[in-house]
């Protein structure tokens, strides 16, 4: 779905076409490849409002996760894209990103605690970042445009924590 022109062309190359012509066409096609740009920060209005939430301070200490977050001790390991999709920075939450996918309409997934997250378009299984502790939340869209944090299934977290087998990739 999101393969670049050059990747698709590499498949064509395996079928055997004149090398010189291939180089010329590759040069031509590489001009069609979009330059990756980071998506703008995503502003999400939560339906639930709690007294203490991520980013607040209590007795001088920073609150790093709120109600609805599942915290995982990653120990420096990587987090992977659970589907083909897009990673966007979370507005007002410097350590968080939102993952969205056309494979999962009506939902957003929030990942907080990733160091140097990979922003933009990702394929299923791509590394989105790594960290010591991951704070994960699943958000469902409501008719009024707000998003509600809901109880996540194990399934999405498993897809995010385990890289897919090569044979499982589409």
């Amino acid at each position, binding site marked *: *779905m999101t393969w670049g022109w050059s990747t*698709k062309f590499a498949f*064509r190359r395996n*079928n055997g*076409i*004149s090398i*010189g*012509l291939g180089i010329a*066409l590759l040069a031509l096609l590489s001009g069609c490849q979009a330059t990756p740009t980071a998506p703008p920060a995503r502003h999400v209005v939560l339906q639930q409002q709690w007294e203490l939430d991520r980013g607040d301070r209590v007795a001088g200490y920073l609150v790093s996760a709120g109600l609805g977050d599942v915290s995982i001790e990653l120990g420096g390991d990587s987090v992977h894209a659970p589907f083909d999709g897009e990673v966007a920075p979370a507005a007002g939450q410097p350590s968080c990103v939102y993952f*969205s*996918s*056309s*494979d*999962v*309409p*009506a*939902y957003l997934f929030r990942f907080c605690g990733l160091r140097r997250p990979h922003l933009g378009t990702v394929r299923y299984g791509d590394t989105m970042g790594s960290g010591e502790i991951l704070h994960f939340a*699943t958000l*469902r*869209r*409501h*008719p009024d445009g707000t998003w509600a944090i*809901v*109880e*996540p*299934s*194990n*399934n*999405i977290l498993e897809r995010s924590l385990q890289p897919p087998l090569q044979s499982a990739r*589409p």
Partner: protein
Amino acid sequence: MTPLIAGGLVFATVGLLFDFQGMRSWLQESATSTTTEGCETIVQANAQLSREQLAQLLTIPERDAKERVRQIVSAPYCRLPELTVRSGVVAEREAYPLAFDPKTRLVILYEKDEYAGYRFSFE
């Protein structure tokens, strides 16, 4: 020297022709694979969503009944594998290629016979 240039031109022309045809078939395969990508079951092979159907669908709020959506969009082109996004709730996903842009498809997600939302999937 001239025969060499002429030979090169013939070679390049044949190569271009060969590759153009290959590229055309590859593009056609690409369009087909976009439609079927991720599908588990093909429900109605000729299903497409018109502009009018899409416009009507966009007026339906999330959480409305699946039946109401189905009255507008009819049977889908295919079903994607079921998912569990929320704990204990099975999500059904159905895909519709757009009649006016077949390389784009609309994916609709339902939970418990309730319409949860849609997303466009682009090539």
